[in-house]
């Protein structure tokens, strides 16, 4: 008999290391003579797209096309320390460092543009610098860059950004744990075959408050990846060991979800900007994974009226619980 159920999982998650653990990052922005930009960051992009959003942030701040930004990343010889890619912190901390470095360099450019254009209410947009009040007074960014070079000005800046928190009271747990939090809810619809214990996830809908999605495609991809991991965590992945030896020691034994096991993931990006984030952005790396298993387990409970307290909810586990319930 196939039984369906719907379940919801909710979460909030602290961004960064928190609890007064050091959490700093730095970035370097350099304006080249031709108006292109070199950005240096120690951050490792391991597929989540931090390289992309660093270039986006700098391009946005300087009014340039994204492809004008050259990024040198994760080179221990030449790039400044950005801290690890972990704790869902990269957009929030290093993104802020990027923004700060870009603004620092901009503060060198602005007086020069003011001098040349005779206006001080300037906006950087469409690869130009122009006056807000009198838009016909404008110059190409590349020309401004050249001028700054000719004048021997400070057009390379390294900025540091620190989100280290004060910590909480050890007795009460109250205080300043994390710099900010991301929130999410996910909904799963499952179908359980009570004759075999097989769980199919029919639908997965995820809503994540990321403050600001600097790159919505990347955020969706992150959510989808996290959901697949959460699904594996809930249903298919099991580590077994015997006498200290790992028995599930290959991907043949340790079964992660295949494309045939994953439903279409419907992602909803919620943007409630956080004032301390770059353009209001927070983090989504780990949050993507957190509510999935609870949503699936709640859906299984809704379908069968059985609480699973031991993961994964695989064939044996479910069949045993179904038998015990007297299906």
């Amino acid at each position, binding site marked *: 008999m196939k039984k369906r159920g719907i379940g919801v999982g909710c979460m909030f998650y602290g961004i960064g290391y928190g609890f007064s653990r050091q959490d700093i990052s730095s970035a370097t922005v350099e304006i080249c003579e031709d108006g292109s930009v070199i950005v240096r960051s120690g951050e490792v992009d391991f597929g989540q797209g931090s390289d992309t959003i660093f270039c986006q942030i700098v391009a946005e701040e300087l009014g340039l096309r994204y492809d004008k930004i050259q990024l040198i990343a994760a080179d221990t010889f030449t790039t400044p320390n950005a801290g690890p890619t972990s704790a869902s912190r990269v957009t929030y901390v290093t993104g802020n460092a990027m923004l700060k470095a870009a603004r620092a360099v901009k503060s060198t450019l602005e007086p020069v543009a003011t001098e040349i254009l005779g206006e001080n209410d300037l906006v950087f947009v469409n690869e130009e610098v122009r006056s807000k009040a009198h838009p016909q007074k404008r110059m190409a960014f590349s020309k401004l860059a050249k001028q700054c070079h000719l004048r021997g000005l400070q057009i390379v800046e390294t900025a540091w950004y620190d989100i280290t928190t004060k910590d909480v009271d050890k007795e009460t747990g109250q205080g300043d744990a994390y710099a900010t939090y991301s929130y999410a809810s996910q909904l799963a619809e499952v179908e359980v075959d009570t004759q075999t214990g097989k769980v199919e996830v029919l639908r997965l809908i995820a809503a994540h408050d990321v403050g600001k999605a600097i790159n919505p495609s990347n955020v969706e991809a992150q959510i989808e990846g996290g959901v697949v991991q959460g699904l594996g965590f809930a249903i298919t992945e099991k580590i077994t060991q015997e006498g200290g030896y790992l028995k599930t020691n290959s991907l043949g034994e340790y*079964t992660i*979800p*295949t*494309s045939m*096991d994953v439903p279409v993931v419907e992602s909803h990006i919620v943007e409630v900007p956080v004032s301390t984030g770059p353009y209001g952005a927070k983090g989504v790396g780990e949050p993507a994974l957190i509510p999935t298993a609870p949503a699936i387990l709640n859906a299984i409970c809704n379908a069968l009226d059985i609480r699973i307290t031991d993961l994964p909810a695989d*064939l*044996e586990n479910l069949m*045993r619980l179904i038998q015990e319930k007297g299906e």
Partner: protein
Amino acid sequence: MQNFQFYSPKSIEDALDFLSDKGDSCKIIAGGTDVIPGLRLEHLCPAHVMNILEIRKLRGITEENGRIRIGPTTTFTDIVQSDMLKQNLPLLVEAASSVGGPPIRNRGTIGGNISTASPAADVLPAVIALGAELELQSRSRGTRILHAGDAVEAPYKTQFNPDEILTGILFKKLPQGTKSAFEKIAQRNAMARAYMNLSIVLRATDDGNISDLRIVPGAVEAVARRVTAAEKILLGQKAEKNLIDKATETLAAEMVGVWIPEYKMPVLRNVFKRVLSSVL
């Protein structure tokens, strides 16, 4: 790192010559989906590995004298894409399509599935249910026919002699009105070893009497077989509920004390009932 001699004959004759000399220390490889992991994990440490994929005659699906001949190096993809097999041996097509995923099916072969003789094989139980005959050749014995149901003597051990090579799998076409069904249960929907599979072939006469019934569970016993004790309950009878229940219990009783873990028993009963009802 394994150290073996690799030989790739271009004809059955060359293969037989090689096996007559080196058969005792030789592992045959076709698609390699079982042999390569075996070599990597050092479950297999042969002095020689003989590749048979260059022997064209060993791959293909043909009809001869009203029977269907499938070459041992015919891949699961070949089987799944064969219209002739979809029409005549749908059970085989269903079983083959349940193996792994497209890349595995492009390499894995029916001969390999039989020769590896894994207790969790998906295609071997279907081959047994279809009553296939295996054609084996060697220099010492010439050509001999082995019934598929007798081919495996223990997990990962066939009755094939070291100097023998499987050269064909032969199927009789099923009589009109024969139905079949296959179900595989696994932890995930692709690239998964069978937790359990079940092949059933059934033929009933017009008045509902079951004239032919073959039940072959896979991944529940050490060696897959037709569970004739359960078949006999329904043979010559109409499929009434009390007989189905009795056959189910007989099937379960046949498994107990052999190999099946406790948690698979209710699943076996459930799956048997629903696969059976799909062919009634």
